[in-house]
């Protein structure tokens, strides 16, 4: 056990040093990729929070978009600096999630997924149809944050990415872990035990949306332009879902591993295989998910355990 803790601590320390040191060695291209990796870590780790409570949603693009538009509109209409705009975007997304969640989270499984998918489309239509306020389909143009410098932008997005990961650690170390786990395994039984499942699900939904909104809040300032089609892009919901699945659901490291691998592999394939990149990407993903259903983290764990057997104590339930 001690050896396992030591390895984990060393791994986190090395990763931390790499995150802080490596960017200074990179040019604009590498830094931009790191910004994208961080953004996807934020999205996938925040979506993973929902899965801890057993909720399958496809609305992440909606919360990202609300964050993006709140932040962009605050800057455009009121001249609010981007850090405050990001906070505004995160709070806006969380409030929306709490409101929508209160209604939608009575649904389960695929019905919840469809409802949240519709939410993304509905939000996009709203933004498109109030052009006097949102600029509609014309979009919003903003000045580049840090005058386009990539290094400070990376550190901002790295901070955004770390927050949902820390939140996942906190959940796993608190009683929320058991509560979320019980809701995930059997919601009816959890209610029978006196757990207010709706309240906890809404909390998970709002917390998850907060981080997605925070990432969204930075995006238009970084790309310098946003339109409803890119801010409320359903592809983001799909990617936020695939990354934790590939990395390893319900784990702390899974969404991070999934986001890093998929973003960098996707970029490698794009620059190497031209128009065939999506086909290879799709096939590779299907094979990985088929062969490693518990994700890359699960694969790594099995590989490690095969070399360093960990004694299992009988009578301890696996609550993951």
């Amino acid at each position, binding site marked *: 056990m001690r050896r396992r803790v030591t390895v984990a601590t060393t791994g986190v320390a090395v990763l931390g040093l790499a995150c802080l040191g490596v960017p200074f060695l990179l*040019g*604009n*291209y590498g830094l*931009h*990729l790191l910004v*994208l990796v961080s953004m996807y870590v934020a999205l996938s780790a925040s979506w993973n929070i929902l899965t801890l409570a057993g909720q399958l949603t496809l609305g992440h693009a909606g919360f990202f978009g609300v964050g993006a538009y709140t932040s962009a509109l605050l800057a455009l209409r009121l001249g609010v600096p981007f850090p405050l705009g990001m906070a505004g975007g995160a709070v806006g997304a969380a409030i929306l999630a709490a409101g929508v969640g209160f209604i939608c989270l009575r649904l389960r499984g695929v019905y919840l997924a469809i409802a949240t998918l519709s939410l993304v489309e509905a939000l996009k239509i709203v933004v*498109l*149809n109030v*052009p006097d306020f949102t600029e*509609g*389909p*014309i*979009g919003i*143009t903003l000045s*580049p944050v840090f*005058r*386009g*410098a990539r290094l400070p932008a990376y550190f901002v997005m790295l901070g955004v990415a770390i927050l949902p990961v820390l939140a996942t650690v906190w959940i796993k170390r608190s009683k929320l872990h058991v509560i979320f786990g019980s809701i995930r395994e059997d919601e009816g039984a959890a209610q029978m035990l006196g757990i207010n499942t709706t309240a906890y699900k809404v909390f998970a939904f709002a917390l998850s949306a907060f981080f997605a909104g925070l990432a969204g809040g930075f995006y238009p300032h970084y*790309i*310098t*332009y946003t*339109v*409803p*089609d*890119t801010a409320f892009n359903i*592809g983001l919901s799909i990617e936020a879902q695939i990354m934790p699945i590939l990395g390893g659901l319900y784990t702390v490291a899974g969404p991070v591993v999934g986001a890093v691998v998929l973003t960098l592999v996707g*970029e490698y394939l*794009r*620059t190497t295989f*031209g*128009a065939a*990149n*999506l086909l290879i990407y799709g096939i590779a993903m299907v094979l990985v998910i088929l062969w490693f259903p518990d994700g890359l983290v699960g694969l790594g764990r099995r590989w490690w355990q095969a070399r360093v057997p960990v004694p299992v104590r009988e009578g301890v339930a696996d609550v993951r």
Partner: protein
Amino acid sequence: MRKMTMAVGLGLLFGSLGMVLPVAWAAEEEIRIGAVWGLTGPQAGVSQEGRRGMEMAQDLLNKKGVLGRKIRVIFEDDKADPAVAVSAAEKLITQDKVVAFVGGVGSTICNAMLGAFEKYTPKPLGTLTGCGATTIEQRFGKERGYFFVHPWEYYYQTTMRDFLLSVTPRPQTVFIAHEDRLYGTSHSKMAEEYFKEAGFKVVARESFKSGAPDLTPLLTRAKAMNPDVFYWIAYGADAVLVTKQGKELNFNPRMYASTVQLGTQEYRDAVGKGNAETFVGITVWEPIAAFPASKEWPEVFPSTRDWVRDYTTRFKREPHYYSIMSYVALVATAKGIEAAGSLERDRVLGAMEKINTMTPMGPLKFSPSKFAVNHAFKQMMIFQWQKGEKVLVFPRDVASGMLMHPFPAWTQR
């Protein structure tokens, strides 16, 4: 463990050398041009057309070379995603060390990519094909190093206005329908403004969702208003639906008019024989245009007929306007480099500003537009479907036939 560490180390070393050395050797020999296109995703069709045009130009230029060197176009796929477009542009600048950017499609992509260029001093040189939105003209047009070859949005609508003014008997009322995204909304606003200024009565301007399965409510309202012109601004699939449902409802304005998407062979085939007859559309360029060869560079800018023949022979398909636009953009950039006698940015852009020649796409001369310093191809054309073929009907100096007007009622066809 030691073996594994050594293998990984050697792998990284050779991998790094493999990436760095070819770049270093090749840099001396070739002139690198960056081309960011949406080769996969929703812009793939148009982007592949653009790619074909650039490949043709590259091969032709490399027969003689430019400054004694080969031109090499490095294509990058932006997947129609602004963040990926920025990745592609940063890679081309920092790793591939391109001399200039040529091509591209999509105003959202263009906005993101040119936004990423802002931090560079000097900014990269660009001959840009896909940046037609006025927001781009306003934001980036003042930069001398950007040469825009796609007509701005307002040129579409001033062309349509001038065409309607030329029609006899002159139409009085116009119903404008548009898809609800950037393209349709932005164009329709300008159309309304210009039409009203010219004395037309715009009876309505209504939006619809692109890709909607049913446009009957919109067309029924339009029919009730009985406009002289039903003008819709949307994409290809919407054009098919408007035509089919207009026929079903027996909606007979004196003229059906639309924008470039009406001009594809796919549209004509999808609506069925004769149903596109007399419909008019705006176009940037058509293969039936008849521009003569360039006096200065006839080997790369032959007549339209010869260029279309060469393109069709090579690719076994008719060229799209993005094919010729990207072809002209790359050749113009190469000619700028050649005239400058070096790859120095300011000298190249100075030489490009002096280009004044005929091309298979029309006269090429960069001059100021409303907000931009360097813009070419301001004149657009109007075509009409006649007996299953496109005929250019406006402006008069490029027309290949007479306008058939008014639109014959569906029941009389």
